[in-house]
């Protein structure tokens, strides 16, 4: 291909487009592969035991983990509500987690439910829960999530180069370049916005747990007295605060805080907090 004096940046339009598309495809492929590895989690069987609080955290973050703990403690008779505050109404059940202990201690001091998420003991326990999930490759750490944005940021750089070329290419046909930039912009946006907070193996695990515990769906109005405290916590973890309402409506009325107070059904993964997105696209899929 001949180079002419009129070529922008010394490259003909078709040459630039070919190079631009090749480089974009390369970066995109690298980014998708890289993110797939980051988001996959462990390949080992994920069917290891996790606690209800861990499942709740994977499902919808700190607040749902808190409610799962509240559900378990309420079902065990360890806590109750009185005059808008949480109170300790019984001893901690055997096998209580650090979060259980922190909540029980706060309840002993008659904490208001809206103060739970800023209680030092509770926040420390939730932080530990997050670290455990990250260590188990079930949750993505903030550092990993930052790394997952490197690929799309490189695509942004390419996008900017393309835009600069577009601006420089006055009086020249730029239709294909424009289309390429639009496509790249969309892909870039998807990758930037989709940085989940949990791994694909965590999603598989949650799916398995929901199947295993499908009888706990709030539609069944599960008899938690029959199922026991552990499954009460699991019901909240997997099916959200609607399960807490089934367990003890009066307790739920006082204990529920923030946006959860208006939830009527269980949260889906796409409604997750901390930027969790639905599915694992952009990372090669979850494989079921």
């Amino acid at each position, binding site marked *: 291909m001949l180079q002419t004096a009129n070529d922008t940046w010394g490259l003909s339009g078709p040459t630039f487009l070919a190079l631009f598309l090749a480089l974009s495809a390369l970066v995109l492929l690298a980014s998708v592969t890289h993110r797939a590895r980051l988001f996959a989690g462990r390949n080992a069987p994920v069917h290891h035991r996790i606690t209800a609080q861990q499942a709740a955290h994977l499902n919808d973050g700190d607040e749902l983990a808190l409610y799962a703990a509240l559900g378990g403690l309420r079902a065990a008779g360890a806590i109750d509500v009185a005059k808008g505050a949480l109170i300790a109404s019984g001893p901690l059940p055997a096998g209580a987690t650090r979060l259980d202990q922190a909540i029980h201690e706060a309840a002993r001091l008659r904490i208001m439910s809206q103060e739970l998420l800023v209680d030092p003991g509770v926040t420390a326990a939730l932080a530990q829960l997050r670290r455990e999930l990250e260590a188990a490759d079930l949750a993505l750490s903030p550092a990993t999530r930052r790394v997952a944005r490197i690929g799309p940021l490189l695509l942004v750089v390419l996008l900017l180069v393309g835009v600069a070329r577009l601006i420089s290419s006055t009086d020249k046909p730029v239709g294909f370049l424009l289309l390429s930039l639009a496509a790249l912009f969309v892909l870039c946006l998807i990758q930037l916005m989709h940085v989940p907070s949990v791994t694909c193996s965590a999603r598989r695990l949650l799916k398995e747990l929901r199947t295993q515990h*499908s*009888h706990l769906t709030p539609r*069944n109005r*599960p008899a938690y*007295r*029959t*199922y*026991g405290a552990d499954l009460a916590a699991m019901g909240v973890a997997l099916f959200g605060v609607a399960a807490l309402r089934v367990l003890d409506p009066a307790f739920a009325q006082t204990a529920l805080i923030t946006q959860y107070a208006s939830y009527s059904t269980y949260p889906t993964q796409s409604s997750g907090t901390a930027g969790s997105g639905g599915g694992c696209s952009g990372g090669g899929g979850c494989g079921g």
Partner: protein
Amino acid sequence: MIPYSVGIGWRPEICGFVAALPGLRFVEVIAESLTAHGPLPPALVALRQRGMAVIPHGVQLSLGGADPVAPSRVAHLARLAERLSAPLVSEHIAFVRAGGVEAGHLLPLPRTREAVDAVVANVRRTQAELPVPLALEPIAALFDWPDDELDEAQFLTEILDRTEALLLLDLANIYANARNRGNDPVDLLDRLPLDRIAYVHVAGGIEHDGIYHDTHTDPLPPAVLELVAELCIRHRPPALLLERDGNYPPAPVLRAELDAIAAAAGYPTIT
């Protein structure tokens, strides 16, 4: 046929508990809680896939009503029997509506020949549409109508003889009726056609102000278990089923009740 064993009423609230009973071979489900054509509860479908016998138990057919049974209600029961491959279906000897008014409760019939005729006519209408046998359950009642012509045993025997229906004997009902009327429940057992029993209901209740209520939400009284043993001395029924409809206790308590029924009847435990 129903497997010779102890079963439990399938309710969504305890479906996880029911599914986890290792020796369970049959359950009963409230027919009106299921749709005839829509999807069945997945947990119930899973039980069927495990080979569990599932018996639809109607509560709103109003076999004892003066009006003919509603064809749509009979069709619903028949369709469920087919979908669940049920060995039989069951309903109550009672009425739940009259003159277009829904009572919302199972109401007792006067034990008269006219009432027998009405029940027999409705049972025959129902049997004509059902693909499986029908078992009839006498109910618990807090009062007797003043113009009774027959006693309980005569009333039931005549209905069963004329319809060739099976008997769903509710021992908790018999206990409640006998206790509230000051009778001996065993006397009734001696006078009923026990060879017609398809299966037996057992349930808990509680006394309030001197009246025993067959609530299905309270613990199983020892007296009902004694009645199970008395029945089994006379005629061992093919199957016994625990009915629990609310205020579900912790799983060990529910398991203990199932074990107690099995022990009283001499059947293997299912827990």
